[in-house]
């Protein structure tokens, strides 16, 4: 792996294990996780950081795949001299169980039928995703991660790590997330799922090899993109600009820039994402409750890890009050915590865009954690 201005050229690796015990009962396997690593694991195996991706993310967090012009989704944060300094830390990122970017998911072939799983794929949870990640971490011989970090659904995985495997993490950075979805968050996910299932090509999930439920998935993604932005960021980015001076008065064309943006991202999403994965992963998010129905501070009792919680002011999909609920539980349980509500206009997308502020917070938080083990 070369290390120059960024994580350099990177390749995706694949890790396969026989089976995983699922939260909803039963064993499932074999399971493959797509993953990437950046930097080097030190002799003591004490410098490992696990990055956890959001709903539509993947294992390719940093660097360039050969021939690609676009780097990984958090390249601004991972690389030599960056927040997750690959000169110091060994960074791992894997695609979640249920995903469609190299890890086992509903589009994978069911060994029993030799056909894609479709809806025969088990109903997985955030904890199941984390259980698989733990096997990957184990395979590197890493006893304790220096830190786990992720935004949005990645933040839920952070909280799952923290409450399921507290002895395996020294630090945790949940960003723009919550310990359980609000009815509003479930509602948006449900509209996305209904859009997919209303597509005639969806066919109860059995569309592989035929026409894809492209309209439904694109619509789900368009709804998603609205919730990722803010009123202000949309006004700044698009205003009421029109794509063409001549008004079309047609419903199938995009008159406004904002419409063009949504169409573009909806259509693009279909090329890289599986509709059934969207159903399974959003369901996993909705079902997630790190408190397991009790007081969240009970789930945090006795945790030795240190937390850095980050929220963004204009984020209305994961509003800062949800991050403050995490902080509140930490305060009550005596967990050492830092919290920052970054003043940003970008809405939920801020966790991918406000990298300057995140770098200031995360680089020093990691430095402190690192100084305690080395």
């Amino acid at each position, binding site marked *: 792996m070369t290390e120059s201005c960024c994580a350099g050229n990177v390749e995706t690796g694949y890790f396969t294990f026989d089976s995983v015990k699922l939260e909803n009962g039963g064993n499932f396997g074999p399971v493959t996780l797509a993953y990437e690593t950046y930097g080097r694991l030190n002799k003591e195996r004490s410098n490992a950081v696990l990055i956890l991706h959001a709903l539509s993310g993947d294992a390719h967090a940093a660097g360039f795949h050969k021939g690609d012009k676009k780097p990984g989704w958090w390249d601004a944060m991972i690389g030599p001299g960056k927040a997750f300094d690959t000169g110091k830390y060994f960074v791992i990122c894997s695609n979640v169980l249920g995903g469609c970017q190299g890890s086992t998911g509903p589009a994978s072939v069911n060994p029993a039928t030799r056909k894609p799983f479709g809806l025969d794929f088990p109903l997985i949870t955030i904890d199941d995703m984390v259980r698989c990640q733990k096997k990957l971490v184990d395979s590197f011989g890493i006893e304790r991660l220096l830190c786990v970090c992720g935004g949005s659904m990645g933040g839920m995985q952070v909280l799952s790590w923290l409450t399921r495997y507290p002895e395996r993490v020294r630090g945790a950075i949940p960003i723009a997330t919550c310990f359980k979805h609000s009815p509003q968050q479930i509602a948006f996910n449900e509209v996305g799922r209904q859009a997919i299932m209303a597509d005639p090509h969806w066919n109860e999930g059995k569309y592989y090899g035929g026409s894809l439920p492209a309209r439904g998935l694109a619509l789900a993604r368009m709804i998603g993109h609205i919730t990722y932005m803010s009123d202000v960021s949309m006004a700044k980015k698009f205003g009421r600009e029109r794509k063409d001076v001549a008004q079309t008065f047609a419903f199938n064309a995009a008159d406004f820039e904002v419409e063009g943006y949504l169409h573009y991202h909806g259509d693009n999403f279909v090329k890289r994402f599986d509709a059934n994965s969207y159903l399974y992963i959003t369901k996993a998010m909705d079902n997630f409750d790190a408190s397991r129905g009790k007081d969240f501070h009970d789930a945090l009792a006795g945790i030795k890890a240190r937390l850095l919680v980050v929220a963004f002011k204009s984020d209305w999909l994961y509003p800062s009050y949800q991050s403050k609920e995490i902080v509140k539980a930490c305060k009550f349980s*005596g967990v050492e915590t830092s919290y920052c509500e970054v003043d940003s206009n970008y809405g939920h997308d801020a966790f991918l865009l406000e990298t300057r502020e995140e770098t200031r917070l995360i680089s020093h938080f990691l430095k402190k954690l690192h100084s305690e083990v080395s």
Partner: protein
Amino acid sequence: MGTDILKSDHRKILEIVAPGSSVLDLGCGSGELLALLVREKKVRGQGIEIDEKAIYDCVERGLNVLHGDIDTGLSEYRDGAFDYVILNQSLQQVEHLERVLTDSLRVGRKVIVGFPNFAHVGSRAQLFFRGISPVTPSLPYTWYETPNRHFLSISDFITYCNARPIRIEKRAYLGARADVHFFPNVFARTGLFLISKK
């Protein structure tokens, strides 16, 4: 950093705080005092601060800091969660002073309070001779831009504690250069108190 160039209130607080204790600094600013306590007394420190820029400074110093206001930040802690709660130069700025003090005495076994003495001779002179709201080194704000909400003197604070089940365990009166022993309510710029519940 040598202790000789410390701010006098920081030096006094450093003397008070027991090694290895836990400290909650309310309105910790950029974390100067808290970092000092962590380094010199190995305390387990937690700060609360409202200013976002100061949060980055605190994290850079390796401190635990929560972005929020003092008024709502205290109630989420358990009784006796900290050995010390520090309100240094922040008590006069909180909205609900009574509640913050009561809650500080609940959350901390002891509370350290430091505030500018409104009855200092400099303030008195400006008010008496010039008839203006005082602007002094310890009260550096004009009336129209001050973040302070409460203008209390050392005598005010003592009277306040005596009227309530609050024990004053230690007190220090700080002048521009040295401690003040003579008529502190007139000559001290800053009052510093260690208090606890009776």
